[in-house]
């Protein structure tokens, strides 16, 4: 198990290194010079050159890459071109919204998907299954921002249980969580629909396995066989999807952040791209890659915890 973890950790480090190179190169070759963009189309060439020097854009690329990576290792993400503030501070503020939102949404989606998937699989072909499958069909088909607007209409405007948007900060955790609830639900519903379907089909496959029949021959009821022998085996594909979904939730909440006026990472990166704030773009993308890779690492560890065969294979 330890060797498996070490091996995964090595591949994690290598992935991060490759990702940093790719991000740097892609952002560098993308058209649009930050200095000329910031100064507008009528700027004089020498003014632009001066700004370039000030922003550190005149240093050789390789040197800039090393500075960037070296800085990130000690938590220094550089200074934003547009806002002239520390990028690390900007990211930290946003992360305090995006990360809790992602975790919150994932919890909701798992809490919905697991029971729904299990009920559907164990009552395959019966009304409960048909109901769950119909609901998930809707959940997959409807875009989350539309859900978001429905939620606002119902809970914020009509019932006035929640505010329609904005974020009060973490001074009052209860208020903060309340502000994140509608966005989290809007994010979670489509994810839950997908996860429930994966859970259902994975469990149905497992329930057809020989060892479930063995379990029944021992004297376990259908239900006991499902809980004791089916569920853990069915988790592998479900974990894969959960990992992918979490990565998406951290980075992909941009539209939901827009609908609820949440100053999260998605909005930050969106603004940074439109303003050619390359250093912010690079840093946020790198951070997201880091998050995705870490999540995948944890999923790998979870696989090994679930399936002893993976531990043996190292």
């Amino acid at each position, binding site marked *: 198990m330890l060797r498996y973890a070490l091996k995964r950790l090595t591949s994690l480090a290598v992935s991060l290194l490759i990702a940093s190179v790719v991000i740097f190169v892609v952002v560098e070759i993308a058209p649009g010079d930050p200095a000329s963009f910031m100064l507008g189309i009528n700027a004089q060439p020498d003014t632009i050159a001066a700004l370039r020097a000030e922003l550190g854009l005149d240093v050789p690329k390789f040197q800039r890459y090393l500075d960037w990576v070296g800085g990130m290792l000690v938590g220094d993400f550089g200074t934003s071109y547009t806002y002239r503030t520390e990028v690390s501070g900007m990211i930290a503020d946003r992360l305090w919204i995006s990360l809790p939102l992602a975790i919150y949404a994932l919890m909701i989606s798992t809490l919905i998907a697991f029971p729904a998937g299990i009920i559907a699989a164990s009552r395959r072909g019966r009304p409960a299954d048909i109901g769950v499958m119909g609901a998930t069909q809707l959940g997959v088909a409807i875009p989350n921002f539309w859900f978001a607007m429905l939620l606002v209409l119902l809970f914020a405007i009509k019932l006035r249980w929640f505010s329609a948007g904005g974020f009060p900060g973490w001074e009052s955790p209860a208020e903060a969580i309340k502000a994140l609830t509608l966005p989290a639900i809007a994010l979670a519903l489509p994810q839950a629909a997908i996860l429930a379907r994966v859970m259902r089909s994975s469990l149905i496959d497992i329930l057809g396995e020989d060892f479930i029949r*063995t379990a029944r*021959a*021992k004297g376990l009821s259908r239900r006991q066989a499902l809980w004791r022998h089916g569920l853990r085996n069915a988790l592998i594909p479900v974990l894969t999807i959960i990992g992918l979904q979490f990565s998406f939730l951290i980075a992909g909440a941009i539209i939901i952040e827009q609908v609820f006026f949440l100053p999260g990472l998605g909005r930050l990166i969106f603004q940074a791209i439109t303003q050619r704030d390359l250093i912010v773009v690079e840093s946020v993308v790198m951070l997201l890659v880091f998050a995705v890779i870490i999540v995948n690492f944890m999923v790998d560890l979870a696989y090994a915890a679930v399936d002893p*065969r993976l531990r043996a294979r190292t």
Partner: protein
Amino acid sequence: MTQAPALLEISNLSVEIRGKHILRDVSLSIGAGEIVALTGESGSGKSMTAFATMGLLPQIASARGGIALSGEPLLGQSEKRLCEIRGEQIGMIFQEPMTALNPVQTIGRQVTETIRIHTAMPQNKAEQRAAEVLTRVGLPPDAVPLGRYPHELSGGQRQRVVIAMAIALRPALLIADEPTTALDVTTQAQILDLLQKLVREDGMALMMITHDLAVVSDMADRIAVMNNGEIVEQGPTRTLFSEMRHPYTRALFEASTHKADLAEVDTDETLLSVHGVSRDYPVRRTGLFTPKRMFRAVKSVSFDINRGERVGLVGESGCGKSTLTRAILGLEPVQEGTITLDGQPVFSQGHPDLSVRRKIQVVFQDPYGSFNPRHRVERLITEPFYLLDSPPNGAERERAVAEALEAVGLNATDADKYIHAFSGGQRQRIAIARALIIKPEIIVFDEAVSALDVRVRAQILDLMAQLSRDYGLTYLFISHDLSVVRSITDRVLVMQAGEIVEQGETEQIFENPAHPYTQSLIAAAPQMPNYDPTSKGDRDASSNPN
């Protein structure tokens, strides 16, 4: 004949699924301490009878008739009561030891579970009991700890775990559904011995389901032969074999002992020559800096096959048969030695030589998995044309397809059908047609009849003999099944742990095996008894003193 009071009493059991009769008026009784074999071909209803007894029929099935265990009716019994009976009064073991165990739980936990769900025994007592049961089935915890996972055990060991789970509570009835079909012969013999021992010691009743009459011929007290959901004949083993009143029983028996009529080989020209061949595989490294190690799967193997000869290659799983086959087919390079076909190497300059490859074709075991279901037969069997420089077109191609299909006993019109329209035996004929179509010199049969029912198997063996006569074909016949090899080959090679330990004329080897491994293989292989006066069974009588 024992007249024990019937423990299990199945009377006029009929099962229907969506209006289709699966079982019809099945009546069978098994007394305590009695071994009753249920035999027949696939789809005959053997396993359905077992599942009906377990109360584990598919939910859409409807059953009529009666099943009683110690006088208590099982059919129509409440699910709650059935759960109590299963595992405690009836244990069941299955065909596939590889998949019958939960891969994510330790064997100790899985055996303990049987005990815990039926008794109020505390965890540590139950574990102790599980250890005792595992010891009883030949897996003492000091050799195979309870904390092992199924993937860490061999097939035979896994089957022992399944048996331990089934007998942990000393059930009155044990149902074994093809318990040894997936195992090697020597392992099979051990598992059969174990089952007999358990029956004797516990006075358990054993319902033994098998397609292989030879397996049960010297352990069953009674045999029931099933066909199309009905028991066509049943009786004490000895009586059944000597009388064989029903034509179906007779047909099964004859097919199991079938000997294909092979043409004489008249040349001694070498066709395939394997000389000093070794094949290594890298072993997964145990650590980052440990040196790379190699596993030698095939060790300096040498043999020749003459034109027109039918040569068998036998050995148990993991002996290197498949590795050697892949090397002969030119699919993988070898580390040492040479393989030549008609004097030319099968593998040259890092890739297989097409001009040589077209002379050798292969037929695999699985008649269901070896075809793409979305292609028509015509396309499936013309695949080897890719090996030709100028494959036939138009009418010539159609003629080749028709000829190949007719040669294997199918119709030219079958070319337009899809593979799902054919039975297992027909599919294997199509596989042979695919091998024949480019007129190879030699065909490799890799367990090609192992998945077939005995009667179909006999027909395919006859077809092989016929084709070898008509086309002067040479065969390399790879199998774990000694009786099949004996019936279709002139010469046999015995392989153990990567080496050919013995080779010689088939009858010679079977009559007088010289190598201890060959002796143990032949001793372990189940033999058909020789009760039937009409069968030419003199060889059985001389080699099977029991």
